[in-house]
């Protein structure tokens, strides 16, 4: 990047000066200052809970800072609400999508836009503008699709279109890529570059340092609420950023031994799953997973991976097929029961941890027994054995470095990464014979990713059969011994782990996906 040195000379589009924010006793932002030059892409990295989202939410007016100043194009402005921010041209794509899932794309688009009281003209205008934007940035989307029916990739496109439609000059994206496939990420970055070319200033939060290196001009690092470093991207590298974030050296590669597969632990034959609307989501799928190997399932999200996992875990009945595991056979006539499967040694890390994997309102210790609540070890006669569970929870928290290590904290009070660690601890610590894992590191910081990957490999080496579903190609390639590619409910290819590379896999997924370009349905 030749213009790297110029970046610092450009006038700042936004300046945050001495932003301070407390949530109760938690000091989320400590006198944070940040300047982002106009027309550049600025990255923010930091561990889970470092205060990145808080800082950006303050810039967007969602939270109010306790102290500090926000300047846009050099003038201090008061940002008391998102309305003020939007008026100043600041818009944000939030970490958790801010979409109304029962609305269509178009309706979501016009939600925040001012204008007459009748809806029809506004929708008409939005439709035209949407087509134009889609054209200009390659952000195609069906304006009449109901958002709840869309896969995450297109959903995020809606979020970006929302901001563009409102005429954002400064666009904040909070972990936009954590839910995207590489192809989708690439398209997002193309959009960001196009925006940059038109003078839009972009702030990008991500945990993936590769992406920081790829797209940003400058980058800031946050740790424990404070801003610890600003760097010009071209003048730094992943290792030093990782060290700045975590405060220690983080090895970025995994040393993985060759697998020593044993007996078949999980056998799937002719499995089909049909959803509530009668659409076939999994179509005649068959494969085997052996003890001591990791089988990865790659694919663009929404191609049946979720339904496959749900069916294997006994959560979803299926009209066709047969699943053999630990001496039981699940068939349409004999549907499995998740509780029973668990006692036979099946563990399941669900894709959607807050949706399926935990009860948000429960304290951590209660979620650590979810699914295993009938285990005699957790009860005395009829009453549950609280001390035992608390001790168990504390042990798991220590082993998996869950922060804060407080078993009594409500689960939704943990960051997503730490929630994930809780779920993983719960499922892995039972020494299962078969482990189903969906998106194990979605939205998790690099320190934690490293830990989770190591743990999964250790499980494999201990003889567990692991079925890993992930949209992160990098992750699949790093972990899986065999990789199956799923497309439209079918398995369209298999690649050995050591020979796989991003190009072949991407091609497999892309070739197959040709007819379904934007993934929206």
């Amino acid at each position, binding site marked *: 990047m030749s213009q790297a040195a110029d970046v610092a000379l450009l006038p700042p589009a936004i300046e945050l000066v001495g932003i301070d924010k*407390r*949530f*109760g*006793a*938690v*000091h*989320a932002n*400590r006198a944070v200052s940040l300047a982002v030059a106009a027309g550049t892409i600025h990255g923010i990295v930091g561990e889970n*809970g*470092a*205060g990145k989202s808080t800082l950006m939410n303050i810039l967007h007016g969602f939270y109010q800072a306790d102290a500090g100043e926000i300047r846009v194009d050099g003038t201090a402005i008061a940002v008391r609400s998102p309305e003020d921010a939007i008026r100043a041209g600041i818009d944000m794509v939030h970490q958790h999508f801010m979409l109304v899932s029962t609305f269509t794309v178009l309706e979501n688009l016009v939600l925040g836009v001012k204008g007459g009281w009748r809806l029809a003209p506004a929708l008409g205008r939005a439709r035209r503008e949407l087509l134009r934007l889609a054209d200009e940035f390659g952000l195609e989307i069906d304006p009449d699709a109901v958002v709840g029916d869309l896969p995450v990739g297109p959903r995020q496109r809606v979020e970006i279109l929302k901001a563009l439609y409102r005429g954002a000059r400064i666009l904040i994206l909070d972990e936009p890529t954590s839910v995207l496939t590489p192809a989708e990420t690439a398209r997002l970055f193309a959009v960001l570059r196009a925006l940059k070319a038109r003078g839009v200033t972009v702030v990008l939060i991500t945990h993936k340092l590769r992406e920081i290196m790829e797209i940003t001009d400058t980058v800031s690092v946050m740790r*424990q*609420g*404070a801003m610890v470093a600003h760097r010009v991207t071209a003048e730094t590298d992943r290792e030093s950023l990782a060290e700045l974030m975590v405060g220690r050296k983080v090895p970025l590669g995994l040393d993985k031994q060759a697998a020593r597969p044993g007996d078949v632990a999980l056998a799937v034959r002719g499995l089909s799953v049909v959803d509530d609307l009668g659409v076939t989501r999994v179509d005649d799928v068959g494969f085997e997973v052996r003890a001591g190997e990791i089988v990865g399932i790659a694919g663009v999200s929404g191609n049946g991976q979720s339904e496959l996992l749900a069916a294997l*875990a*006994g*959560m979803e009945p299926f009209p066709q097929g047969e699943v053999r595991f630990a001496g039981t056979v699940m068939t349409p006539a004999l549907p499995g*029961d*998740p*509780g*029973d*499967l*668990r006692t036979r040694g099946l563990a*399941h890390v*669900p894709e959607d941890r807050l*949706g*399926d*994997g*935990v*009860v*948000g*309102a*429960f304290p951590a210790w*209660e979620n650590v*027994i*979810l*699914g295993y*609540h*009938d285990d005699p070890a*957790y*009860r005395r006669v*009829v*009453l*549950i054995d*609280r001390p035992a569970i608390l001790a168990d929870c504390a042990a798991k928290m220590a082993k998996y470095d869950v922060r*804060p290590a*407080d078993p*009594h*904290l*409500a689960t939704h*009070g943990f960051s997503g990464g730490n929630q994930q660690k809780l779920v993983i601890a719960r499922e892995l610590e039972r020494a299962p014979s078969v482990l189903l894992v969906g998106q194990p590191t979605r939205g998790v910081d690099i320190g934690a990713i490293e830990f989770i990957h190591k743990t999964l490999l250790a499980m494999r080496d201990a003889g567990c059969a692991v079925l890993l579903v992930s949209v992160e190609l990098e992750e699949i390639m790093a972990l899986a011994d065999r990789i199956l590619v799923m497309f439209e409910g079918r398995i369209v290819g298999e690649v050995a782990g050591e020979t796989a590379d991003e190009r072949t896999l991407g091609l497999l997924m892309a070739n197959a996906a040709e007819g379904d370009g934007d993934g929206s349905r």
Partner: protein
Amino acid sequence: MARGEAAPAWVGHVLVPLVNLALAFLVSGLIVLAIGEDPLEAVVILVRGAVGFEEAIGYTLYYATNIMFAGLAVAVAFHAGLFNIGGEGQAYIGGLGVGVALLAFDAHLPLPILLLISILASAAFGAAWAWIPGYLQARRGSHVVITTIMFNFIAFALMNYLLVNVLIQPGQMSPQSREFEPVAWLPFAHEALGWFGIQVTRSPLNLSLLWALACCLLVWLLIWRTRWGYRIRVVGGNEPAARYAGIDPAKVVIATMCVSGALAGFVGLNEIMGVQHRLLLNFTAGYGFVGIAAALMGRNHPLGIILASLLFGALYQGGAELAFEMPRITRELVVVIQGLVILFSGALEHMLRPRIEAMFRRPAPAGGEG
């Protein structure tokens, strides 16, 4: 955030509720003043009438017993994510169970067995009345709020029919059954205390208070200390997670509604076996609805429900005393005061909380978790 709480616990748990209560009384006082009575005197009469003498305490506790049962019923259902508005009907039918059982057996069996039968009958009848809405919710998706409202009306029609046509004491004007044999009367508190040589004034307070307190303990154990309660809370907290955990939400919903109905049915135990000693119309007197407020004010926790029930019991009894002593204060004005208490202590409980807690906040520990 729990960790960040810097104000002492008593401020949140004692002071704030007291201030809210005072506020409710302040507004009530203005109304009392407006009708030309002395508000201070009214407060004195109200408080004295609620807790000032043995009989008053007896009545307060007697009302609290009913409200506890009804509140527990609402709370248990709430933990499974169900809004059971049908406590009134379930209590009514629970009372029917007690009545029918005692009419059948009171001449033949001793009290302990009759008590056991009555507890079982009220629970079974109440549970049965809640089972249908529960079943329909779980298996047919019929919204439990509608069905329980409907079942309240149906319960009243059923009871009206049975009392007027079947159970009425022959030759009686009043649609009520015959009086049970005295052996089938749940001992009053004044009688029970009398066994131990403690003399207190008579009141309708009876041994079902003990059962209510036992139920509070049992509900607490059930909800927070057993895996059945765990299942209930998982279903209420996150239904997909329940499915993930191998818990069948439909079964839990049905079972929880039955438990809820059984608890509501115990209102019938207190009223029919404990106080009225006969089956009669309208003995539920709206306790099922007050139970909703008590449960929510008590945050669906048995301890909170006990406190809320005591508050409501005191208002019932003190309010009656107030209407008795001050001719210009009608029973409707007492209802107004009750409404204001629910408004300020329940719905507006967060109004002053932050400000009051801020006044007592200790400086936050340096360098909070970040």
